[in-house]
């Protein structure tokens, strides 16, 4: 695994005791992390809203006091996340939990709503795959595990670089065979 300086480092979720409200966006097994963090905090559970991408899991049993809103896909959960962030007031703590590509996308949404990175908590659960943007057509690919890859939007061969954009929530994919079309380096797992 390469050491990428710009790659976000995520920790463990911890309830912010002073927060008046808690807004959580989680995907799949990320709900386990939410249940662990909020399990012993009845007051925080009562003031929390969890937006879940994917079906609820057994972890929901640890969140009896919390409103968990299950959405059929990541895209629909993000639509709800946008709407909740728009209405949220200062004093609302924001938490994210899920795969790396989920955290990449969700943190970019939170930052676009003015949430400061230092105030944004995330916990990584599940796949360590990257979200990648093709710098040529600007198309985004979720859950990229190898490099080089073919851009799913414009079809060029992309090398996934260790260069992360917080604004986009994505790594940079740059054409790898511009000078010798079709000549590709050996594929590597990211």
């Amino acid at each position, binding site marked *: 695994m390469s050491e990428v300086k710009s790659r976000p480092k995520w920790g463990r979720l911890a309830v*912010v005791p*002073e*927060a*008046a*409200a808690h807004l959580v966006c989680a995907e799949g097994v990320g709900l386990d992390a939410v249940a662990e963090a909020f399990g012993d905090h009845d007051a925080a559970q009562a003031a929390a809203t969890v937006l879940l991408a994917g079906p609820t899991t057994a972890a929901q049993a640890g969140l009896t006091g919390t409103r968990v809103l299950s959405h059929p896909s990541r895209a629909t959960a993000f639509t709800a996340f946008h709407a909740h*962030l728009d209405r*949220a*007031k*200062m*004093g*609302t*703590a*924001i938490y994210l939990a899920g795969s790396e590509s989920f955290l990449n996308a969700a943190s970019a949404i939170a*930052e676009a*709503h*003015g*949430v*400061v*990175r*230092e*105030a944004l908590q995330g916990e990584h659960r599940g796949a360590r795959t990257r979200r990648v943007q093709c710098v040529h057509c600007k198309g985004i690919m979720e859950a990229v595990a190898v490099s080089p890859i073919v851009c799913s939007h414009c079809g060029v061969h992309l090398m996934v670089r260790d260069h992360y954009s917080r604004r986009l929530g994505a790594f940079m994919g740059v054409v790898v065979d511009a000078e010798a079309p079709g000549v590709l380096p050996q594929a590597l797992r990211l």
Partner: protein
Amino acid sequence: MRALQYTVRVSEAEAVTPRVRRLRLVAADGTALPPVSAGAHTVVSIDTGERVIRNAYSLTAPSLSGGAYEIAVLRTPESRGGSAFIHERLREGDSLTLSAPANFFPVNRRARHHVLVAGGIGITPIAAMAEEIFRLGASFELHYAVRSAHDGAFCRELAARFGGRLHLYCGERQERLQVQAVLPNQPLGTHLYVCGPERMIEAVLADARAAGWPNANLHAERFVAPAGGEPFSLFLRRSQRSVTVGADESVLEAIERIGVEAPHLCRGGACGECITAVSHADGTLDHRDHFLSAAERDAGEHVMICVSRLKGRELVLDL
């Protein structure tokens, strides 16, 4: 390395209130001074004839576009002579030396909304920030607490410029700025900036933290003038020089008096530039800065020489 300095001439000096004097400063060589960002300050060297006093002042709104700089100087009763000199003896046409501006209190350009809070002379950086945000077309509100209607000069200007975005609290009329009333219902992504008396800053920050505001969204400017204390001996280990730090001078000023150069920038305990390793302290370090953490203070390995002192006999510094 010597920091960049400007020699300036006082082109205008006027009393905006009985206690505040506004100075407009132009470069002595006629060149235009560079533009500054709101929240920036400069350190003014004031040669009173007996000694050189260096005070940090916020650059006010007219400085933003550069050319000339303006500062507003409050006459403080506990002054070590700097503000008294500016009020009583400084005349239009006189020369001063300024450090190149630095900014430890900038506007966060990604904020969705800005809440600006000022008390008294703390309005100087805050009004510049309001002007900068206003020019950007961003959303803000300005809360300004003043002691009395005498402080009205700034109030009238601000009201004319910012209209309903200015919320004025006049102590004389029993109006109190209650920050708890301002904090609720601010949109996520709001940043709060406060400048004023230390007690006010502490109260505003404590209330905001209690309401769940993250530290990253809270910004304060706290310059402390180096207050005096008991004299003590100072030995500079590397320079092999000793000096007595007088009752009304700072460690940094004593060091400069004997011609030793030490790194520094804000001279107000805010920036951290003058952090100095303590070799030995025969006494208790009297930390007065806002830079070192509580743990660093307790460790006693470093001291901010622009404002902090020793309560005791002798301080040995790695300088």
